[in-house]
């Protein structure tokens, strides 16, 4: 999730327009729009200030990088939403049998 996604999500969650958020932090509506478009990136400090104006807190931490799900996610993303659900249900049926829930 990039800064533009975080900013837009925070603003929408707060129910603010770009103009209202701009007014709250002493910026123009067009400045907010540029950050949300991704054409310009706010500094971390500015992003935190913007998100706090939405009554939310930006939290950042470090964790081990894990791409072990990528092949499964990419496989799912190659399907339609309906196919993804059907595929997951089919797998769950198999898992249920393996767990011993099935009537043999």
């Amino acid at each position: 999730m990039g800064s533009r996604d975080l900013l837009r999500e925070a603003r929408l969650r707060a129910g603010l327009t770009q103009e209202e958020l701009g007014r709250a932090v002493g910026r123009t509506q067009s400045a907010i729009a540029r950050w949300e478009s991704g054409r310009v990136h706010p500094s971390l400090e500015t992003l935190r200030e913007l998100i706090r104006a939405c009554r939310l807190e930006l939290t950042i931490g470090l964790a081990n990088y894990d791409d072990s799900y990528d092949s499964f996610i990419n496989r799912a993303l190659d399907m339609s939403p309906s196919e993804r659900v059907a595929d997951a249900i089919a797998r769950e049926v198999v898992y249920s049998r393996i767990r011993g829930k099935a009537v043999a």
Partner: protein
Amino acid sequence: MRLPERSSTRGFEARPLPEFRFGDILRVLKEHEVRFIVIGAIAAVAQGYPLTTQDIDITPARDPDNLERLAAALRELRARLRTPDKDEGVELPIDAQMLGNADMWTLRTPFGDLDLSYVPSGTQGYDDLRRGARTETIEGVEVAISSLVDIIRSKEAADRVKDQAQLPALRRTLELVRQRESQS
């Protein structure tokens, strides 16, 4: 629909094969014009989350009219209260007032398990989730599903062990979805 009968095999009592006919559940809810959003793992799976789930979770709107429609749908689905010690669930008299008296219901139907949560953790309920929701077809039924962002924020807020375990794959799914969107 008739539930599979119990049988015993190899010295232990096997439980009935769970049903995962979520499309039938969604179809009945839609036919009764229930306003709801599919949340949880099924909503995440529809958006690329690679794991599976054994039930379907929804957030219904909590206004009295919607609760009446929800009660009618649940009666048609023959929903029962899900309990750990009774596979078939416990019968309960479903009406709108009863449904509105608790924040969550874990139900069993002949078509699969259905969980209702009016105010999922970290959210303010139906109207809050509706803002970011998208429309997708699940098992042939067009429904509103919660956005991945909202699913993630709810699981972060719930902070149970099982939610924490799901978060890495959910976050990675969101990243890969966004990568694809930016490339298209």
